[in-house]
């Protein structure tokens, strides 16, 4: 007993001494200075210093100095943070003054830990998901359409059974309502819509951010359901050489080469090359039509980056050419005997982003973003000719600073958009030229611990449609470190391109009828999400659920219900809404074995000719299960994704006298899988799409008489091509 006591006292004595020593310090204050590691000696103004785990905080003054009284709690660690810098936690036990040097964090990206599934970001104010390079490698090569295969929030659907056009869908709304950006510059809008998912190769992409619901006003007024931002390879970090070759059982071949060069200390460049070729006709469902259109694409992207101290500038040029030919097996270009679709597209675009960060004020910067594009296509759908060209230019100036300290930041700016669109459909010409100057302001409040509010608004002065005001609000509240609530609300506005957004109906006997002057679309979107991160058995997981409701004040309704041989376009008269619910669970069940399961419910309705009806081709229920397996260090990887699509309402063209035309689709499953083996520089992969070989029975109605009144290839709700097996290889030199 006695020896025990002696043992205790042995430890107690220093502890007592320590407490005694700490008492005088506790009565005083901690003083110090925060300096910038990038500019030695330069103080950082407005940095936040807080006692860890408390709200007891202060900020640095104009000389970078601070004074912090000691808290009641017994923590001896301070958290020093500043926007754009790496946060530091320092133990100041026994110290009365301290000098803290913060390292700049030039790119405020979240650390994506290797081995993790597509994650929901814990940092962003919006409900965001990141698809990393690692996730991209799990899907079949090589374009944006395939990049969402292992993601539950975005769906990709084929619009018709002939042309091969694909669209993304988010929150139950067409891709047109989702803002697509590359490096946060709006891209592939307007007339590029029908085939735009083919215009970005998966090998160009570093990662993809998916933002659900209303985002920032900075990127314009157009987004309604959300934003998909594609981050292209960063010249500074791109591989020196990256080669990806791909081939599949349909005789589609892709070749991709990326070259990265650090020219000198300031300049770096990345040259991204992509080609896709399909020249083999196949008709496995024996309807006389090719299952997939023939396709030939050449795509070149060249990015340059200049960074020198406070200046960073990025340039990019993209040029592409694509030819497509789909239709009956014997169709040749120019043939009038057989039904077919052809399209030739040429596109060139460029952008520049330049930003300057003020000396000693890393929170203050000014940036200029400019972009321009030329898009031109000639296409033919049966006997209907559809040609178009679009010239677009965009200019944005953004100034960013703080009010007092980093708890209050704001971004303000001016923008100008020029859009010249000309389309010709079967002899009728549609033209418009838009000039839209605008101004925007976004205020960000941050209580430095668990609440962020982003309130933004923009006013745009449209030469055709007058002044448009778009307010938006995002709130993020971290109830605990692992429990996050988010709220997003706001208004979006866009000028529809009804033909380009409904090319599917061109592949049917329907006539395009415009019954009135179409007005811009305007919608409110409000929604929220709940994210719970957890750890079970030492392995991480997350549960995310969200609900979004979009209601249109005006919409360009594409009415296929009212008149069987027409698609009628008119302004919404009545209600149109989309409500979307999603629940998703991600968990690493065993070391290296990830499971992701999601359920989605959609209720999308619009008023068609006075009747509120469900929108065609949107299933009410969907399930998604992704199983991912990886051996240590990703040497072997295997992935299996199962998707269930519920019943969808259809709207058939034609005279409807044949009773076999179903009003609804079937429910079905699609299973995709892939396996890959990595070596130091090589990687081999092989996979299968549509493993169960499910095919929509007779996807083309009236296939035997394509020029007749009952022809309709637009009611495509399931896979057409059946099972596809592919294999490929990647080679990289870092």
């Amino acid at each position, binding site marked *: 007993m006695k020896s025990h006591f002696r043992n205790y006292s042995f430890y107690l004595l220093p502890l007592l001494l320590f407490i005694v020593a700490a008492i005088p310090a506790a009565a005083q204050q901690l003083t110090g200075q925060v300096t910038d590691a990038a500019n030695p000696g330069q103080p950082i103004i407005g940095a936040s210093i807080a006692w860890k785990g408390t709200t007891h905080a202060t900020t640095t003054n104009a000389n970078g100095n601070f004074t912090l009284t000691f808290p009641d709690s017994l923590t001896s660690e301070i958290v020093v943070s500043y926007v754009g810098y*790496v946060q530091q936690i320092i133990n100041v036990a026994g110290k009365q003054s301290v000098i803290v040097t913060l*390292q700049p964090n030039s*790119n405020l990206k979240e650390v994506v*830990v*290797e081995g993790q599934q597509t994650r929901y970001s814990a940092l962003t104010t919006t409900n965001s998901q990141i698809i990393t390079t690692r996730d991209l490698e799990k899907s079949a090569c090589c374009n944006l359409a395939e990049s969402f295969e292992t993601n539950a929030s975005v769906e990709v659907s084929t619009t018709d059974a002939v042309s091969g056009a694909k669209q993304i869908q988010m929150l139950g709304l067409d891709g047109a309502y989702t803002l697509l950006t590359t490096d946060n510059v709006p891209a592939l809008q307007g007339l590029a819509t029908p085939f735009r998912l083919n215009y970005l190769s998966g090998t160009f992409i570093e990662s993809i951010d998916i933002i659900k619901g209303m985002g920032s006003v900075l990127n314009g007024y157009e987004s309604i359901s959300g934003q998909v931002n594609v981050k292209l390879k960063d010249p*500074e970090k791109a591989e020196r050489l990256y080669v990806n070759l791909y081939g599949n059982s349909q005789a589609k071949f892709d070749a991709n080469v990326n070259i990265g060069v650090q020219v000198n200390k300031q300049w770096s460049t990345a040259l991204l090359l992509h080609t896709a070729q399909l020249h083999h006709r196949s008709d496995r469902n024996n309807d006389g039509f090719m299952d997939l259109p023939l396709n030939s694409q050449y795509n070149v992207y060249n990015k340059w980056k200049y960074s020198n101290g406070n200046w960073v500038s990025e340039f990019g040029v993209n040029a592409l050419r694509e030819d497509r030919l789909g239709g009956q097996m014997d169709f040749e270009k120019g043939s009038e005997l057989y039904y077919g679709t052809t399209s030739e597209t040429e596109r060139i675009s460029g952008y520049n982003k330049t930003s300057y960060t003020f000396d000693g004020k890393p929170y203050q910067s000014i940036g200029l973003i400019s972009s321009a594009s030329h898009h031109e296509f000639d296409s033919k759908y049966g006997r209907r000719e559809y040609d178009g060209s679009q010239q677009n230019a965009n200019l944005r100036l953004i100034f960013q600073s703080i009010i007092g300290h980093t708890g209050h930041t704001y971004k303000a700016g001016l923008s100008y958009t020029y859009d010249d669109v000309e389309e010709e459909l079967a002899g009728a010409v549609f033209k418009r030229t838009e000039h839209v100057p605008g101004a925007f302001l976004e205020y960000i409040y941050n209580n430095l611990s668990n609440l962020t509010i982003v309130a933004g608004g923009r006013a745009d002065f449209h030469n055709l449609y007058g002044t448009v005001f778009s307010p938006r609000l995002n709130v993020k509240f971290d109830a605990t470190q692992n429990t996050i609530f988010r709220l997003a609300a706001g208004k979006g506005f866009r000028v529809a391109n009804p033909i380009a957004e409904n090319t599917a109906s061109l592949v049917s006997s329907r006539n395009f009828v415009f019954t009135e002057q179409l007005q811009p679309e305007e919608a409110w979107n409000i929604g929220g999400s709940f994210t719970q991160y957890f750890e079970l058995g030492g392995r991480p997981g997350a549960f995310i659920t969200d609900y979004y409701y979009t209601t249109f004040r005006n919409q360009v309704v594409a009415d296929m219900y009212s008149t069987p041989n027409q698609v009628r376009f008119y302004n919404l008269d009545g209600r149109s809404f989309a409500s979307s619910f999603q629940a998703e669970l991600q968990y690493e069940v065993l070391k290296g074995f990830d499971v992701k399961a999601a359920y989605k419910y959609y209720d999308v309705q619009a008023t068609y000719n006075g009747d509120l009806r469900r929108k065609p081709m949107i299933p009410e229920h969907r399930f998604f299960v992704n199983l991912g397996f990886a051996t240590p260090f990703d*040497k072997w990887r295997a992935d299996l994704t199962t998707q269930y699509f519920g019943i969808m309402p259809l709207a058939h063209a034609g005279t409807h006298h044949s009773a076999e035309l179903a009003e609804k689709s079937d429910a079905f499953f699609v299973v995709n899988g892939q396996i890959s083996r*990595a070596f*130091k520089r090589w990687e081999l992969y092989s996979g299968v799409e549509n493993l169960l070989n499910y095919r929509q029975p007779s996807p083309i109605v009236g296939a035997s008489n394509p020029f007749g009144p009952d022809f309709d290839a637009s009611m495509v709700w399931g896979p057409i091509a059946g099972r596809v097996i592919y294999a490929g290889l990647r080679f990289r030199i870092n």
Partner: protein
Amino acid sequence: MNKLKVLLLSMVLALVSIVATQAQNNNQQTIKIKTSAVCDMCKTTLEKAMAYEKGVKSSSLDVDSKMLTVTFDARKTDANKIKKAVTAVGYDADELPAQDRAYNKLDDCCKKGAHQ
């Protein structure tokens, strides 16, 4: 007789495999390399890169001491090659400095001094 043959054969095989394992063990070497790795993310990156190096059996980085312990097959690689591989990932390896391009590509939190 037949059974005896099988028994004998299996005994010989067992002996050969024991000898072979020992030979392998004899060729196995362990080195410690002082690196410039500073965080858990560096640990993941570095250990992954090592796993793809020819002849490397196992590796482990102690973040606090920045010491990387690598066990390798001396017939397939050597200490110099391993150190070079470490520099190619962007970290110093003892006296060898990190390769510039690789270092620049590291995440900010993995750069030298990011956690001082």
